[in-house]
């Protein structure tokens, strides 16, 4: 069904766009950004259903959104605890720490840990 593909495309596009804009609470949005979000919903809505007003399309659309949201949560959870994400985040923290002249790393579970290797890696990253 076409509606599933439409919703998936819009979901991916909006997720990327909102990530690029930065994560913020609703209260942190400026009036312009709030209006923009409302307008985005208005613009995107007709493209999602392509004029299909049936209950079947609405149910399938909602199920698609729930499934995409669930998939997103599973992927986020897995990447947070996977080796790749740990390595990337550790390196990122090293670079961040080097810029503030401190030498500690943060592990994936949020603990702070001092590390000499981190300082070395951060300084080499800055040299690049």
């Amino acid at each position: 069904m076409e509606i599933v593909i439409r919703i998936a495309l819009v979901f991916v596009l909006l997720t990327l766009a909102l990530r690029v804009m930065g994560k913020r609470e609703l209260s942190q949005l400026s009036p312009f950004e709030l209006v923009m979000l409302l307008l985005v919903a208005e613009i995107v809505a007709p493209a999602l259903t392509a004029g299909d007003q049936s209950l079947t399309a609405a149910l399938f659309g909602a199920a698609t959104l729930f499934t995409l949201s669930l998939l997103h949560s599973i992927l986020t959870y897995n990447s947070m605890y996977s080796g790749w994400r740990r390595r990337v985040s550790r390196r990122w923290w090293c670079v961040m720490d080097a810029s503030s002249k401190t030498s500690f790393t943060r592990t994936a579970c949020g603990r702070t840990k001092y590390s000499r290797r981190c300082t070395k890696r951060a300084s080499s990253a800055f040299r690049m």
Partner: protein
Amino acid sequence: MRGVEFVGILLIALLPVLAVFGVFGPDRRSVVATSAGIGIEVDYPSRLRFENLERLQILVTNNTAAPRDITLEIDPAYLEAYSGLLFTPAPDERYVFRIVGLPSGESRVVSAELSAHEYGKHSGSVRFASADARGQVEIETLIFP
């Protein structure tokens, strides 16, 4: 995750998968009937969703050696499930079309634009009649709410 939650998630995730494979999407079928050299082929929507537009197309062919007058009739009970009916050509009577002097070996097309208005299963027949030929085909459409 509890067992009930897992089953619920599976059910919700199953819906888009089924939709992608077209289980609940619109579908078309074609049925053919012939009698004494007169043939009709009806191409109709077998599945569609509420308020969706579809087309019913009837191809009438004269395979006899002489020109024939053919009368075509669509079951009113079937067409009551639709609104905004638009026929090409226009019917001579209510859902009755008369094709006068259809030459040998030629075909005519009668088409109707349908907008699904009542959900459920709707069936009916398309009948054709000529001087010495008579026949009908059964059509059935499921309209999702």
